[in-house]
């Protein structure tokens, strides 16, 4: 019987093709937006989780307080080499690496640009590169005693950061000082890391006139120690040495897991807001279905009367109309999912093409796709409840007499 009702419902939708299509637009725009946003959001989260997995859960990151990426924290909130020494002396710290990350002016010939320069000592650079799986694909890495030598990120050579083609041995100016390119990093996949200029820490301090600063300190916990506990100890010792009070620290100590959680929470909120906005269009779409179904009930009053006369019970009329509105939602949802997947894939492709980032990966999680379909069917059905109730409650004799 259910099958027959589906066929009847489809017949009725086909009878008024244009109206059915127009009604479904409301649903599929919403579903497409929700699917695209969720799939891209999911992809982004997956990417970040993977990155943190590479980093390992035994890392602790210490940064000065403030918003934004390392290097952008303004003014007086800085970490120093003294803090680094304090951290290195904490029990349970296997190693601690201080990195200087600064924004500055870079130029090649007449071309001028803004970029990030990362300053590390050669040993620390080796440690971090190994940890993150970063490597040189051309030339060599920086050595001890390398002054005014630079290892450039992948995009400097292989993408269009500079109009003039660069290669090993080319010159690049950072804050007015000429550096010679000695190596190129392999492709990492995000525009910031692939656009970095890697130079010696002391040289970077000199040319930027930085006295004593660490933009970020990364710690690896020694085997057998609990990362959280070590992080707590670091926080306590730093507080003491910097003479700060609890809850009023000017620095942040976070384990890699906490950092991941922070990121994921932020993404969950951003994604929630975006999906929520998209969901408003679904509400509107649902109201569209309701409107169409009400019209349909009025138009088919006599038909409803006939069906009742030949033995249809109220529950069967109700079911018939619910299936019809559910189908409107479901078919709209199918198209919406297809468009949403298309949008997400296009965004992924365009991001790869123009920004060169793998951050936007459309995740084709079946839970999202199937969930969207079920959701659209449910919206259709819910929107149909009131019109269907109206249809089922019509008195047979009145319905038959309706012209």
């Amino acid at each position, binding site marked *: 019987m259910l099958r027959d009702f589906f066929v009847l419902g489809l017949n009725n939708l086909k009878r008024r093709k244009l109206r059915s299509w127009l009604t479904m637009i409301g649903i599929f725009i919403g579903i497409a937006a929700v699917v695209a946003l969720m799939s891209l959001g999911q992809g982004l989260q997956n990417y970040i989780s993977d990155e943190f997995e590479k980093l390992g859960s035994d890392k602790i990151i210490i940064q000065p307080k403030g918003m934004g990426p390392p290097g952008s924290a303004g003014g007086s909130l800085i970490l120093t080499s003294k803090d680094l020494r304090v951290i290195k002396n904490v029990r349970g710290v296997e190693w601690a690496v201080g990195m200087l990350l600064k924004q500055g002016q870079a130029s090649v010939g007449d071309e001028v640009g803004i970029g990030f320069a990362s300053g590390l000592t050669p040993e620390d650079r080796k440690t971090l590169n190994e940890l993150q799986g970063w490597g040189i694909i051309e030339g060599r890495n920086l050595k001890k005693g390398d002054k005014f030598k630079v290892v450039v990120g992948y995009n400097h050579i292989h993408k269009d950061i500079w109009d003039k083609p660069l290669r090993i041995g080319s010159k690049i100016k950072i804050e007015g000082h000429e550096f010679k390119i000695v190596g190129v990093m392999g492709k990492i996949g995000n525009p910031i890391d692939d656009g970095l200029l890697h130079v010696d820490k002391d040289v970077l301090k000199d040319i930027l006139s930085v006295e004593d600063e660490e933009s970020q300190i990364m710690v690896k916990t020694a085997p057998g120690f609990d990362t959280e506990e070590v992080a707590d100890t670091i926080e306590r010792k730093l507080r003491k040495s910097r003479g700060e009070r609890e809850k009023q620290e000017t620095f942040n100590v976070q384990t890699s897991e906490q950092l991941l959680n922070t990121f994921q929470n932020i993404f969950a909120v951003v994604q929630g807001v975006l999906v929520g906005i998209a969901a408003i269009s679904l509400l509107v779409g649902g109201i569209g279905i309701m409107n169409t179904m009400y019209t349909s009930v009025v138009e088919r009053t006599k038909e409803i009367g*006939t069906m009742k*006369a030949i033995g249809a019970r109220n*529950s069967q009329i109700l079911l018939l109309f619910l299936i019809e509105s559910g189908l409107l939602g479901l078919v709209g949802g199918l198209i919406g999912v297809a468009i949403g997947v298309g949008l997400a894939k296009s965004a992924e492709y365009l991001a790869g093409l123009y920004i060169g980032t793998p951050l936007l990966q459309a995740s084709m999680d079946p839970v999202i796709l199937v969930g969207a379909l079920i959701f659209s069917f449910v919206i259709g059905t819910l929107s149909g409840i009131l019109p269907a109730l109206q249809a089922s409650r019509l008195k047979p*004799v009145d319905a038959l007499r309706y012209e």
Partner: protein
Amino acid sequence: MEKKKTKKVDRKDEIIRLKNVAKWYKAGDEIVKAVDGIDIVIHKGEFVAIVGPSGSGKSTAMNMVGALDIATKGDIFLDGINIEKLHESDLAQIRGRKIGFVFQTFNLIPTLTALENVMLPMVFQRVPYEDRVERAKELLGKVDLSHRLTHLPNMLSGGERQRVAVARALANNPEVILADEPTGNLDTKRGEEVAQMFNKLSDEGKTIILVTHDMYVAKHADKIYKLKDGKFVR
């Protein structure tokens, strides 16, 4: 009243009984007595015509017999059951199983083919698909429409549509056929054909109640009741 052919009607075998049935409407401040206390007994296999001018209450009476409408007062027994005491879902079952309707305006479902229209009453009674198709084909054959199975109603002539409607009325093999002005939208020739079809069904043992204002059509019936201002007149 006019006697026709020799047909056996068992006088004890009553199928419909109306006891002092009335239907009153409120139209503004006025109460319209569409049907004002009628009594009638119809036996199994009888072919009864109810005639009267428009507004005489004949359709209203038929709607109540067909369990489409509820009487203001009085009792209606269908096959021994007082349908005035039943709820809508039971009434729907009675309409589906015991009664077949034929309407003046045919009332076929426009999106369904002739075959599907005839199958629809069986869908509501949950008859399995294969049985439905077989039965519907058989019935359409009976009304000489075997060549029109996949036609939609708008591709059929008026006479053909009404024959599809008759086949549909027979789908669940009901005991009673209720026809409300079935020839009203047909020309004389097609009307005559449909009326003769009722004679044939009556001969096969169906109880038929035909509401009409056309005396020529009414003459096909075994008995004719005249209704005027909501009451039977002699």
